[in-house]
């Protein structure tokens, strides 16, 4: 069963702003999807629609439910961390655990306690007394103790230092993901998550511009670092994008067989950041580099 399925998903704000412009997408169970796009591309709007936070036009089914009309039921199967620091600042750590245990039928308190025991968070502390990293650890402990089918993370590590970010994704992958759950994550720090993703989607100006599994990316795209004298010849294969690195041309090709390009220079599989710049940076020059 698909965890998320959208057909012609549209969302407009006011009369002129189109945040989602007929999005079609399908996320199968057991995938880790990276939803990547420049600021204002529609990522958050898409996630908000999926989480039942905003009404929408078109068809959208999440875990077999309409998120707008059945948000409270949906939230038994879906968890989300919308942002860092949305935990109420007045709340005590132990109260947060009690509350989630009280309202969520699928919360495993023992599990949450185990996760918290690994941190330095004191149970009597209030959220406002915790560092940003600790708040994220607490939120993650709460979320991971819920036996949910779909976890949505919207910029879950924004503003955290490198160690916390690394730890966040390691914990998620080692202690949570089990190939039956689905995870959707958006972040600007693409390079940190690309190793854990199974699928990637680029969204720009309310439209999905790339939807691929990570495996397919490797066969579909190739990057060539061409020697100067071979650059002109390489350009005949119509690169999607070209940039200069240390005086050499780096070109990105789509669906060009590697054996043809091999004689022209060094080949490598492009990173998601490279693809992002090539596909979205090319389409809207002012958002160039937003993925970094």
């Amino acid at each position, binding site marked *: 069963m698909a965890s998320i399925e959208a057909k012609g998903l549209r969302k407009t704000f006011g009369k002129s702003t189109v945040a989602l412009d007929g999005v079609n997408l399908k996320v199968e169970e057991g995938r880790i999807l990276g939803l990547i796009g420049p600021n204002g591309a529609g990522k958050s709007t898409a996630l908000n629609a999926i989480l039942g936070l905003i009404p929408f036009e078109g068809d959208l089914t999440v875990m077999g439910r309409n998120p707008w009309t059945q948000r409270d039921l949906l939230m038994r199967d879906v968890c*989300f961390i919308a942002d860092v620091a949305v935990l109420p600042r007045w709340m005590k750590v132990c109260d947060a655990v009690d509350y989630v245990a009280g309202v969520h039928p699928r919360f495993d308190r*023992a599990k949450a306690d185990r996760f918290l025991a690994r941190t330095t968070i004191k149970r009597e502390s209030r959220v406002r007394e915790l560092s940003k990293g600790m708040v994220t650890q607490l939120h993650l402990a709460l979320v991971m103790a819920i036996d949910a089918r779909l976890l949505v993370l919207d910029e879950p590590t924004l503003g955290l230092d490198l160690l916390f970010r690394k730890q966040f994704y390691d914990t998620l992958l080692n202690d949570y993901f089990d190939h039956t759950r689905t995870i959707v994550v958006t972040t600007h720090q693409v390079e940190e998550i690309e190793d854990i993703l199974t699928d990637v989607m680029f969204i720009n100006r309310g439209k999905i511009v790339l939807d691929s599994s990570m495996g397919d990316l490797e066969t579909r795209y190739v990057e060539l670092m061409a020697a100067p004298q071979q650059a002109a010849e390489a350009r005949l294969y119509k690169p999607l994008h070209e940039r200069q690195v240390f005086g050499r041309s780096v070109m990105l090709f789509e669906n060009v067989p590697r054996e043809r390009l091999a004689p022209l220079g060094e080949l490598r599989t492009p990173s998601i950041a490279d693809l992002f710049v090539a596909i979205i940076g090319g389409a809207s020059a002012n958002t160039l580099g937003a993925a970094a």
Partner: protein
Amino acid sequence: MSTFSDTVPDGAPDSAFDQGATAAQSVLAPTRPFYWSVRRELWEHRAFYLGPLIAGGVVLFGLVLSVINVSHHLHGAWQDKMRGAGELLAIPYGVAAFAILATAIIVGVFYCLGALHNERRDRSLLFWKSLPVSDLTTVLAKAAMPLVVLPVVTFAIILATQMVMVVLNTLALVLHGMDPAMTFTAVPWGRMTLVLAYGLVAVSLWWAPVYAWLLLVSAWAKRAPFLWAVLPPLALCLVEKIAFDTGNLWSVITYRLGGAFEAAFSYPQKGDEVAHDVLPHIDLGGFLATPGLWSGLVFAVACIAGAVWFRRNREPI
């Protein structure tokens, strides 16, 4: 709790219990989210009990300071064999009840103004909405705070304060060589407690539209919910005054804010033989027959429905 919980066997009964509780929850779910929503409101808003408690403390402190004066006064009254000595003795109890009730109402008003506004402002709305609690449950839990929790807490704190006052009064009477039994015989305890309980319920019902209106504004306003709650009604009053030179809306508002006791109790007229009685008379029939009670409740339900709608549709600000 500890790092050992994985390995030490005594962690097992705990988790087994938790799983049992979890299984039971998924069956009897409907009231649990409501119960926990109310509990979490109490965690956040300690003013609900601290406010009335402090008011009670202030009253007691004042009483301790004045105990000499009051008992001198009583001494005189006692010696004059004045009929109303018991009622005179009951007056401080009424004052204490009023002080605590007034504090509670202020707490309730400010609670309602922030209840659906603060969670949007600090974005914690996104956390609350990530849990399987419907907007209806949330808003009803928030409405129950001033309408149900506050009167119950206020009742308990008033009673507790009055009990301490009894002890202080008895001590004062003994110190001045008077019969301490007077506190117990002369003050109409049963009736006073009944009047108190009835009064608190009546005030809650009467004020329900006020609280509900504040909740609605709290759910709707992007900023300054207090101003949005207060200024538009005042502006309408002004418009009415200028355009028609009438004050109908103004009287509706003042009637609502100040008319609870008038509607719920009947006060003895001058010249009645019970005129010395300081306790108001419960007039349940009259209260239930007051159209203002029912129109107010209808307005309250409409406001709460509106608040639920906004809770569902509004985003963090």
